[in-house]
């Protein structure tokens, strides 16, 4: 029997896993997908919000700024990229200036530091590509950008190093209350039991909760579409550029990514199907039009890809966090939509406290705080590169030309604990395939490496698991 089962290996589940791996507990994380960070975590704005847009007195209001402050330390301990580039909320109308003031006040209540209202002129001095129509802006220096899936993988790897088990490709199909805890049915016939369950199942956190509790809730999937631009457009803005938020959400932003691309989006559309990640013409047109309001000259010819993500929203608009009253030992960290990524470290603290209380957990003496990521050849000096290649010549073979990713890095991404099993898994961990040619050149080599490392035929290598095979057979097999 486990002490804790965490359902969901996204940013929330992995943050919680890392936090409770500090205790002497038997913990396992399960996720229906074949890889970490396969849900909302891999498709969002990747913003570490300052916290002015969260309502005081809500979980969001309480945990946004708190989470924000934890990124600097976490990113150093766990070796994932994070940049505190600052945010600007643009105002296009004199009449809307009071809305900026209200945001500033709200931010100050939430503990957000350094908030300042700038004139249109000063805003454009700071960011020359901002539209002439901007009359004022709210500057939030504590806003940042991060790579959400690299962060998730870093958290999970560290949790694993500290003893947490992971069972991926395992869908929770039922949960039953048993004597001293809960019994989970995984897939068709595997059963695991635990004293405590943590529900970090994102889009499916309603399904998980509703297996067990009579306090039912409903997740409303809300789609957001994005366009990603070539790194040559990455310097268009330095700060994350927002427009004044509306009821639908934070609006379309224009931001550099932590890896140097430019990102615009998202729109906000409620849908029914939790698996519908299709982008739409209307959505993509909408975000480009909106982005053009903030920035003169959006270089649409430099778009390299588009994608969409689904927010796990609910009708009350706040996170659902806490031990469920009618199900002791069942803790929700559910319906974590924006600012979920930012709040994740703070959510982990809250949940870990609850777990500690329930299980009377004691702290590990030998907790390993630090985790080293995959070495980034592209960021090394020539001297360091030479040393690396000397130790392993595979670091001298470039596989992904656009992003300058070596064979050594790709093999590491597969071989390390919780390593990649798919093309997308390699992509998430190394960035191979994220460049301007969008995997045109490197796919055949990555496929080959996966096949050899995992000892599977090339026809069994998939993009992201299930039926997403890349190759269907040998030549002439279908003649």
């Amino acid at each position, binding site marked *: 029997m486990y002490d804790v089962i965490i359902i969901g290996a996204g940013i929330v589940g992995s943050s919680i896993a890392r936090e409770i791996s500090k205790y002497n507990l038997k913990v396992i994380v399960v996720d229906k997908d074949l890889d970490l960070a396969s849900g909302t975590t891999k498709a969002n704005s990747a913003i570490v919000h300052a916290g002015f847009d969260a309502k005081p007195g809500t979980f969001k209001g309480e945990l946004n700024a708190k989470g924000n402050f934890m990124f600097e330390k976490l990113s150093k301990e766990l070796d994932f990229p994070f940049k505190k580039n600052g945010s600007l909320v643009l105002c296009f109308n004199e009449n809307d200036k009071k809305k900026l003031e209200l945001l500033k006040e709200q931010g100050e209540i939430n503990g957000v530091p350094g908030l300042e209202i700038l004139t249109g002129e000063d805003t454009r001095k700071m960011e020359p590509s901002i539209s002439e129509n901007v009359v004022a802006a709210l500057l939030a220096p504590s806003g940042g950008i991060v790579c959400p899936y690299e962060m998730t993988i870093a958290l999970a790897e560290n949790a694993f190093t500290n003893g947490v088990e992971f069972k991926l490709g395992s869908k929770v199909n039922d949960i039953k209350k048993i004597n001293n805890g809960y019994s989970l049915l995984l897939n068709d016939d595997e059963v695991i039991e635990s004293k405590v369950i943590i529900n970090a199942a994102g889009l499916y956190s309603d399904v998980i909760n509703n297996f067990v509790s009579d306090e039912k809730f409903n997740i409303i999937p809300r789609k957001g579409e994005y366009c990603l631009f070539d790194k040559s457009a990455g310097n268009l803005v330095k700060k994350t550029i927002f427009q004044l938020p509306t009821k639908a959400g934070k609006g379309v932003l224009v931001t550099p990514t932590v890896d140097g691309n430019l990102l615009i989006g998202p729109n906000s559309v409620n849908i029914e199907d939790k698996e519908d990640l299709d*982008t739409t013409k209307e959505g993509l047109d909408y975000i480009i039009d909106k982005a053009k309001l903030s920035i003169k000259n959006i270089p649409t010819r430099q778009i390299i*890809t588009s994608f969409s993500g689904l927010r796990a929203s609910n009708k009350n608009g706040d996170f659902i966090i806490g031990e469920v009253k009618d199900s002791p030992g069942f803790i929700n960290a559910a319906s974590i939509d924006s600012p979920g990524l930012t709040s994740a470290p703070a959510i982990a603290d809250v949940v870990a406290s609850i777990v500690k209380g329930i299980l009377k957990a004691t702290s590990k003496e030998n907790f390993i705080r630090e985790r080293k990521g995959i070495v980034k050849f592209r960021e090394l000096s020539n001297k360091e590169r030479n040393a690396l290649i000397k130790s392993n010549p595979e670091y001298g073979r470039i596989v992904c030309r656009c992003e300058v990713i070596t064979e050594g890095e790709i093999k590491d991404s597969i071989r390390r604990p919780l390593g990649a099993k798919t093309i997308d898994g390699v992509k998430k961990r190394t960035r191979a395939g994220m460049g301007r040619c*969008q995997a045109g050149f490197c796919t055949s080599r990555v496929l080959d490496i996966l096949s050899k490392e995992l000892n599977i035929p090339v026809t069994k290598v998939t993009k992201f698991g299930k039926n997403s095979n890349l190759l269907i057979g040998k*030549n002439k097999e279908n003649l």
Partner: protein
Amino acid sequence: MKDIDIVIIGGGPAGLAASIAAKDEGIENILILEREAQLGGILNQCIHNGFGLHTFKEELTGPEYASRFIDKVNEHKIPYVLNTTVLEITKDKIITAVNEDGIIELRAKAIILAMGCRERPRGAINIPGSRCAGILTAGAAQKFVNIEGYMPGKEVVILGSGDIGLIMARRMTFEGANVKAVVELLPYSSGLKRNVVQCLDDYNIPLKLSHTIINIKGKDRLEGVVISKVDENKQPIKGTEELISCDTLLLSVGLVPENELSQNAGVNLSPVTGGAIVNESLETNIEGVFACGNVLHVHDLVDNVSLESSNAGRCAASYVKDDKRSGEYIKVSGVQGVRYTVPALINSSKVNNSTTIRFRVGEVFKENYVSLYFDHTRVIHIKKKILSPGEMEELKVTKVLLNKYSNCKEITIKIEKE
């Protein structure tokens, strides 16, 4: 840091021809840097024939054409390194590259850019829909089929009737796939006429002109694409949507010269071609840096690549032998139907017998004239039955003409009705 007279970046048809020409001019200290495990470039995966009609008066396959040049490179003992990727070129002609022996730093007297081009991905045209498996560029599919021996799918739709798309339509059919349609945005195919006939017509593969793909459907693997007819502004016409079920979508939607290294070095690029702006010696704005082949402008015939690149090799050799640039430039431009010219500048003192101006038109012209003007004087006026964007054209300008019009400031090439 090693000193090399001529560093050639890319060992495909352009780099190979350039290296041989430079060697023939007496330059010994040459080094070809190639990132793949063998020389030959993209030709290695072009196993269909049709290469070399002009150069060798034979119809060779891509690898056969490449091997003619590779054999010469070996005979001439021209040095090359494989599995070596260039990371950086500076405007001082310092090159940093890497392979499994470590970082390589070279100081070159002359550099010949011969990096070829890459394919535009789905994102470049932003097709909405699913991001399932089964969507790839035609060239990536060609590599799987021709080099690895594996099929990326069996029910295929191809977007784009450029040569790569046409060739792959036939290729996939040969290997047992059912190619259901080639979808083309324009009202005409942008590939060679002979490819439309030999790859589509001969196999009854429907060519859907003036159509585009507006949606992609599939969960894990592609299940179908929605196509739509487009109007004269290339916008989808409501009501003409059609779902074609398929498990594979090949994209042949354009080639982009790979000039990231060039751009970072400070080479000026043409916004029309995506390649460097060069003079009659195929030299860029950086002295001693030359460009040829697909990295300069996308070619249709490898024979022209070889001709152009041999020229670049000769000019680079001249440069190394201390023949620096001097003299006035005549501007060369394409207007009125002509999208671009290569070169964009001519220094007539550098022209020996004649110089070739290569160009492409922006639309299809029938029974029109290709005219060349020295300032306002029309000097060349040739009737052409058909001109199309898919077929590169060329004009030769002789030294005699350049001398006759020695005061000329601008050469203009245009398409005229009369």
